[in-house]
């Protein structure tokens, strides 16, 4: 419990089911104040669902189990009034497609102003001044004129800046950015990542960055969790995990990424496809695609056991290796 309270946000055995199909299988993850945590995984791995569940943003048919606490206060099942104060005020979200995440018929100034009014009680002249300051902060040129413009009058990159301004309006302690640059061009992606980094540094805000792009995560986050089929399969500091991934899936993901320099090599491709959540294998969900699969993998589900300094891996093959190493070094009994 003390561990939980020391973290800003703690997810504990968080589960989600849709129509009786479990898509999230017990996520344990903590975010400390000011920390940048990355969630990486392919589509359907549950990285977005995790945070939507924690903030109560999933549709009504979703069944959520486990716990998500903010400074020790439970969010799962919390009354709407509590959640409305947390959303935007303590934890803000930005998403992949900024153009569709902004209301097309409300001017961006009003949309930012709405957050200011909700969480900081600012309206009228004070609200306008703060909106201008925020637009300026996120690099919208000529803010005084653009404040009345509508989302369709901005480019994708500018809309994402507006989204960020709107997120910052509530002065949140944590920003959850769900694929914030996926829909953007490479040079604009660099601009937005830069902006997020700068703001985070200046405001001391924590960040959860959800992305399928390993590079984006690696360059932005302190810590990273790799998700597969609704579970975290490896978690550790960014440096340790990306330079020496231990889980076969994490290894495969990194190997799938074509290098930008040095000799070309054949890409490590993970055979097969991500399993349908309705037809998960009995054991480890990755086993059918795994090159290192051992017999245990088909019957039991590995947990995130400590394996390396700075890493935790959920893999039986890796566990065996670590035990073997320990034995050969004479540490084991």
């Amino acid at each position, binding site marked *: 419990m003390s561990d939980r309270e020391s973290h800003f946000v703690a997810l504990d055995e968080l589960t989600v089911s849709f129509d009786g199909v479990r898509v999230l299988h017990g996520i344990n993850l903590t975010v400390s104040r000011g920390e940048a945590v990355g969630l990486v995984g392919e589509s359907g791995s549950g990285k977005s669902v995790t945070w939507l569940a924690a903030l109560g943003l999933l549709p009504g048919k979703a069944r959520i189990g486990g716990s998500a606490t903010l400074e020790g206060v439970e969010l799962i099942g919390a009354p709407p009034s509590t959640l409305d*104060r947390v959303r935007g005020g303590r934890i803000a979200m930005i998403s992949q497609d900024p153009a569709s*995440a902004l209301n097309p018929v409300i001017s961006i100034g009003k949309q930012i102003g709405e957050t200011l009014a909700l969480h900081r009680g600012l309206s009228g002249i004070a609200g306008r001044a703060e909106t201008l300051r925020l637009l300026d902060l996120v690099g919208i040129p000529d803010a005084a004129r653009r404040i009345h413009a509508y989302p369709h009058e901005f480019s994708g990159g500018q809309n994402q800046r507006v989204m960020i301004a709107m997120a910052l309006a509530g002065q949140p302690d944590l920003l959850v950015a769900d694929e914030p640059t996926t829909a953007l061009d490479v040079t604009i992606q660099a601009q937005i990542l830069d902006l997020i980094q700068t703001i985070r540094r200046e405001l001391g805000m924590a960040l959860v960055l959800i992305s399928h792009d390993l590079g984006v995560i690696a360059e932005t986050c302190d810590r990273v969790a790799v998700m597969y089929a609704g579970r975290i399969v490896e978690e550790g500091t960014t440096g340790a995990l990306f330079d020496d991934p231990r889980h076969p899936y994490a290894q495969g993901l990194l190997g799938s990424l074509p290098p930008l320099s040095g000799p070309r090599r054949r890409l490590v491709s993970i055979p097969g496809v991500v399993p349908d959540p309705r037809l998960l294998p009995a054991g480890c969900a990755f086993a059918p695609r795994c090159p290192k699969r051992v017999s245990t993998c088909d019957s039991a589900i590995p947990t995130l056991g400590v394996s390396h300094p700075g890493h935790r891996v959920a893999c039986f093959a890796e566990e065996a290796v670590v035990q073997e190493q320990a034995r050969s070094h004479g540490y084991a009994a």
Partner: protein
Amino acid sequence: MGRFIILRVGRALITIALVVTFAFIVLRLSGDPAQIILGPEAPPEVLAAFRRAWGLDDPIWLQYLHYFGAIAQGELGRSMRDGRSAIEIVAERIPITLALTVPALVLKLGIGIPAGVYAALHRGSLTDRIVMIVSVAGFTIPSFVLGLTLVLVFAVQLGWLPSGGQDSWRHAILPILTLGIGGAAILARFTRSAMLEVLGQPFIRAASAKGVPWQDVITRHALPNAAIPTVTIIGFMVGTLIAGAVVVESVFSWPGVGRLLVVAVANRDLAVVQCILLLVAATMVISNLIVDFLYGFLDPRLRSAKGQKAAGGQP
């Protein structure tokens, strides 16, 4: 924007002209007005005199030119029946029809929109299913069937309300209900699907994610967007205020514009028919124009698509 208005108004005028022309062609080609008005036994010389008096002897193109020229000057001709001005005849029926259609429109909006919104917000619930079943029934049952059913139940069986005529406000209740229920059903369905579409948009979740209470998400974020497609159908309903009650007026013997039209067509009373058609076309076109401008008001994307910069876009 000026360019846009001119174009839209121009298009509206062309539409009206086409309707008027079409009416002229259809009515003139479907039978001899002189024969129909004077009856099969009318002597030839009477028929000839009638034709001469009304210009029916002229070549059809000349009749058309006369007719069109007269309309352009606001002269819609006289009834071949009693020689009164067609405008006068039609105008005295308009309030009678509006006495049915305006309350019916209020009923459509007042029931249809809330029912649609409620069904969308409680998708899959029992209420949603009831609303959907009622609305399917509402717009698949023809208005004369609905009207006659209401008459059977409330006039014949229960004897609560009169079955026809226009003597008191009680006579208006059944026709208004008949008109209103069908329209409300259509509107409920439309509103529901527009609302569902909007509720599925990412910006709705984004609004929740920034802490907007659900009530306000609906009123401030969802409804203004859902209004955009719904306005089309409301515009259509406004367009039918004058001529949308033809069947219902016949069923309930309500002496409005619709009844007048039926009688005038049967009698080949050209001027009256044309006057009504012109009126109908004009209301449709005008309501369409209003819808277009409403779109611009509701949807900033269309405003700038029309070449007009949005409010803040001005230097």
